[in-house]
């Protein structure tokens, strides 16, 4: 399976490393070249030596997405720090590049819920934190 992850922050880089370890082809796109460091940290070999791909580019620039391999991707994950950026590129991946599976990280629970209803598979870390905190608090 070929997985393209846009956004090499804490979530994007960790998911990328796990996906690569699990035997997938993984490509990561981020506008900040220094974000690559997250992919190498705590690893025995570099990201590239382990078979990973890394592209520097802005998420909204189609050229960067194509260079990172969006046309071949089976799975696309939008995990930049911007909700709106994620929601726009996820829709581009789905509608323009016909990526079969698209996952989008949205911090705002309200928008995550509405876009989920519209057929986008959203992941909302804020909602997870709320649910978890609620469980812990009510158990105490």
């Amino acid at each position, binding site marked *: 399976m070929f997985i393209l992850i846009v956004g090499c922050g804490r979530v994007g880089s960790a998911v990328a490393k796990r996906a690569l370890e699990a035997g997938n082809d993984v490509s990561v796109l981020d506008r900040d070249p220094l974000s690559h460091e997250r992919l190498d940290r705590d690893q025995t070999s570099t990201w590239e030596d382990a078979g990973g791909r890394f592209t520097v580019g802005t998420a909204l620039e189609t050229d960067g997405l194509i260079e990172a391999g969006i046309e071949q991707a089976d799975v696309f994950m939008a995990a930049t720090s911007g*909700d*709106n950026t994620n929601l726009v590129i996820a*829709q*581009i991946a789905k509608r323009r590049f016909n990526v079969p599976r698209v996952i989008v990280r949205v911090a705002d629970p309200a*928008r995550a819920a509405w876009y989920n209803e519209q057929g986008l598979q959203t992941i909302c870390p804020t909602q997870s934190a709320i649910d978890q905190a609620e469980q812990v608090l009510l158990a105490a």
Partner: protein
Amino acid sequence: MYVIIAGAGKVGWNLARELIARDREVTLIESNHERFGVVEEELEHAVQYGDASELWVLERAGIQRADLVIAVTGDDEDNILICQVAKEKYGVQRIVARVNNPRNLPHFKLLGIQPAVSATDLILRLIEHEVPEYGLVQLLALEEEHLEIIELEVVADSEAVGKQVKEITLPEGSLIISVLRNGRGFVPKGDSVIELGDQVLLILDPGLEREITERFAASGAAAA
């Protein structure tokens, strides 16, 4: 008419001013607190503080009864999202989005955000209008209505030179609406004669440009 404007930069603030001067009800939304403070001194209750891409901020501004939502922030993804939510979630009838980076225009189109206004594009069209060597100039494109207005310069060797308007066979779905000659424009009649150097304005269904260009430009120039 109730108008919500997202983004109180130069464009948003001046739009709000103009619309208020025309007795429209306007709410301007600005997410930068410092900027909000500056604008509030003039516009008072007509400006609200908040991130217009958040649903509750739009609802607080009364998006349910908005007739028009204009997204003119400096971020294209924000403008796309605000308009998409306004249109698809709240059923706002009319939206207008600003395109900051012309390279993002295809994204606006892909997601059905129309009209999308790009200052770069507008200025480019004005330049093309002033510099006739470009040949075909697209003056106006009403994409949802499937109409556009173009301007063509009549070059030597083209079949239109010296012909009456009624003798020029145009494809179905196109019409000559004006002729510019020596800096003046007129609406031609069937017996008006097209001359070399005229600029001809046509209204047409999109897709007919090439066929029409061939009537007024020599075949070699049509491709350029």
